[in-house]
């Protein structure tokens, strides 16, 4: 019991001592994910909207974005490193690629689920194709789309930690620094701080999505 308690105290002391650093990395991590997921969501919804009416197009889009997600992140970061160099750029590109599939898939699912009778009546009211999409179909599909974006976000928060190998920002730095010091007492604290930091970022994003869901879902659907 005793040594465990000491370890806990050590970690709290450690985190408190480095609170500025830990907070800074947290903000970096969250900003990185927010940027990537925003690009992913925009591209993903666009791809979903463009492809959902044709079975061949949606199969192709889902196959390609699915293949992105299949490529191990460690490998993709290295491949992108060869193209765009070190830093934030390869991480943002990789995360954007990884975030596409859940958004595309849910956009397609959501749009296909819209009751044809509703679209029919919108057509009867004289709404154009664009108006039907923007005012009827997308709002009805939105909760499903948002779930996709949320899924992407959770995935990206975790993958972002690996971005540290190409000098990406965020908590991965603590984890990899700790790994490089296996055996020294500070290693456990570094890895623990990085890992818990990532979990906290994920929980914060999740809470934000619950709020966003309430704010952005059409009143009739709540």
């Amino acid at each position, binding site marked *: 019991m005793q040594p465990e308690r000491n370890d806990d105290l050590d970690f709290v002391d450690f985190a408190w001592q480095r609170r500025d650093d830990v907070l800074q990395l947290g903000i970096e991590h969250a900003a990185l994910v927010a940027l990537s997921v925003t690009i992913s969501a925009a591209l993903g919804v666009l791809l979903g909207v463009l492809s959902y009416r044709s*079975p061949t197009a949606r199969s192709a889009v889902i196959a390609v974005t699915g293949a992105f997600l299949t*490529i191990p992140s460690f*490998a993709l970061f290295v*491949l992108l*490193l060869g193209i765009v160099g070190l830093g934030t750029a390869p991480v943002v590109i990789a995360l954007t690629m990884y975030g596409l599939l859940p958004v595309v*898939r849910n956009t397609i699912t959501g749009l296909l689920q819209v009751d044809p009778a509703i679209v029919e009546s919108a057509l009867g009211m004289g709404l154009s194709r664009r108006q039907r999409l923007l005012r009827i179909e997308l709002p009805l599909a939105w909760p499903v789309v948002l779930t996709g974006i949320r899924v992407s976000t959770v995935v990206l928060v975790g993958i972002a930690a690996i971005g540290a190998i190409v000098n990406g920002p965020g908590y991965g730095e603590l984890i990899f620094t700790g790994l490089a010091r*296996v*055996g020294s007492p500070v290693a456990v604290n570094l890895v623990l701080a990085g890992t818990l930091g990532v979990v906290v970022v994920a929980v914060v994003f999740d809470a934000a999505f619950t709020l966003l869901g309430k704010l952005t879902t059409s009143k009739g659907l709540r």
Partner: protein
Amino acid sequence: MTASTDWATVRPPGTDPARGGRWWPWIGRLALPVVLALVLLALWLYVGSQELDSIEARSLTAETIGETAARHVALTAVSTVLVVALAVPLGILLTRPFTRRYRGLLLTVANIGQAVPTIGLLALLAVAFFFLGFWAAVVGLVAYAVLPVLRNTMVGLEGVDPAVLEAGKGMGLSGRQVLRRLELPLAVPVILAGIRTALVINVGTATLAAYINGGGLGTLIVAGFSTNRFLVSLTGAVLTAVLALLVDHLAGIAEDVLKPKGL
């Protein structure tokens, strides 16, 4: 992949790549291996055209590459088998009526656990418990890939039409027989999809095993970084990506073949 909802595990209708049309299954099944073979050929020609120094030459022998690739496959295979052996029975157990009260709690814990980054968990095994090597990597891999199989087993079993179960009972089947002859076969497609997800996660995570001396193709990437030889890292990365895409592709074909007929 780490969704807490069914949306992530259920394909939208008509988007199964293998069912897009009459010509899709065959062109689809052959196209990817051909593309991957071309990528490997391009890599081989590129590496061959470079002037290799002694470090690069030593890291890129056919023997080293074969060994790391075999180790990568072993890591993936062992952990996927363990995941299936753990998660399917657990999923069955958690859909029986007597475990209902623990279900929500367990899934909540599992979903929070999923937010722990892979590299963080592997690193903790190494720095906190000094647990390194092949089996440490397997522990990390299994911990990550359990959830999709568990979730899909539960979703698959719960998705079986209660009327079918009722009919089975009406025919005089016992609870165990209903499970074995009706529920499980009907849930197989969803469970297989979960296993495929787990397999893909494992191929990817196995890359990180290099950081805790677990071996695998990640070793090449890490070796390239630590010796400042990008060519070695690049080779590791391309091989990892090709392996992952190939494994997913084969799993997709297996999924189609293993699906019970008549569903």
